């Protein structure tokens, strides 16, 4: 038996007793905002209207103390998912490999109560938005409930 024939027989034997399948996935969720547009927003000067005009509608708006955080996020990724299984005698084995990225990159802009930009950060939204929340803003009107 020649080398080619041996390889063919070995390949057929392998495929008939085991199975390897792969998935190649491409994911695009929303579209990234312009880096230049984010850079152009000056901390301490830019206001909400300017940010919305240059970056469009955010993905999320979150109350943060007396102010708010606005997040823009997107995802463009490709990943592999490979699964292999084999039957050898009475034993069945299966192994899987996946490299899917779960992170969602983005930009978060922080505004104060008067809607002035006070900070901006880039990174993964899961990290930027999970920071400890500031206390909720409560306005006291000074009135005393009747009957007190």
């Amino acid at each position, binding site marked *: 038996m020649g080398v080619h024939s041996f390889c063919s027989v070995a390949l057929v034997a392998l495929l008939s007793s085991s*199975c*390897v*399948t*792969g*998935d*190649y*996935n*491409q*994911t*695009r*969720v*929303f*579209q990234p905002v312009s880096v230049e547009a984010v850079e152009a927003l000056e901390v301490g000067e830019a206001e*909400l*209207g300017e*940010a*919305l*005009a240059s*970056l*469009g*509608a*955010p*993905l999320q*708006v*979150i*109350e943060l103390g*007396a102010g*708010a955080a606005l997040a823009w996020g997107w995802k463009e990724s*490709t990943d592999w998912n490979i699964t292999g299984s084999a039957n050898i005698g009475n034993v069945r084995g299966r192994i899987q490999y996946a490299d899917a990225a779960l992170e969602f990159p983005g930009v978060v802009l922080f505004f104060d*109560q008067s*809607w002035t930009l006070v900070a901006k950060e880039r990174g993964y939204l899961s990290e930027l938005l999970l920071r400890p929340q500031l206390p*909720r*803003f409560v*306005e006291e009107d000074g009135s005393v409930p009747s009957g007190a």
Partner: protein
Amino acid sequence: MSTPSDHPLRRLALLVLAASILPGCFFSRSRTNPELSPELASQIIPLQSTAADVTELLGAPNEVVQLGLRTAWRYEHTVEKQSAAFLIFLGLRGVDTQSDRVWVFFDAEGNVTNIGTQFQASEAEYDVPIF
């Protein structure tokens, strides 16, 4: 002299067999919430429009966020297009999700102070990845 593989029925059977076990593909499209109209959104004017005007133009929002005494309303329409091709041991899949989104910001009295829009849902594409 013709060989057995040249027989028309045999060749047809081989073609049918190959077509049935070799390639497969699918396309799907899903939408979330009604479409948003840029024309209607453009009628919302900061410092002029009120919450009642916004409701009349766009209907009930998908989300209301309380910001102290102020609020922000989100309207969103999402389109997801998915396509895939299957070879015997390999699947190629592409998913593209895009949205139309409008955020309207109100003051404590329910007057519109700001509006942010984006209309990208129509840009979702069927795209099988080729690596």
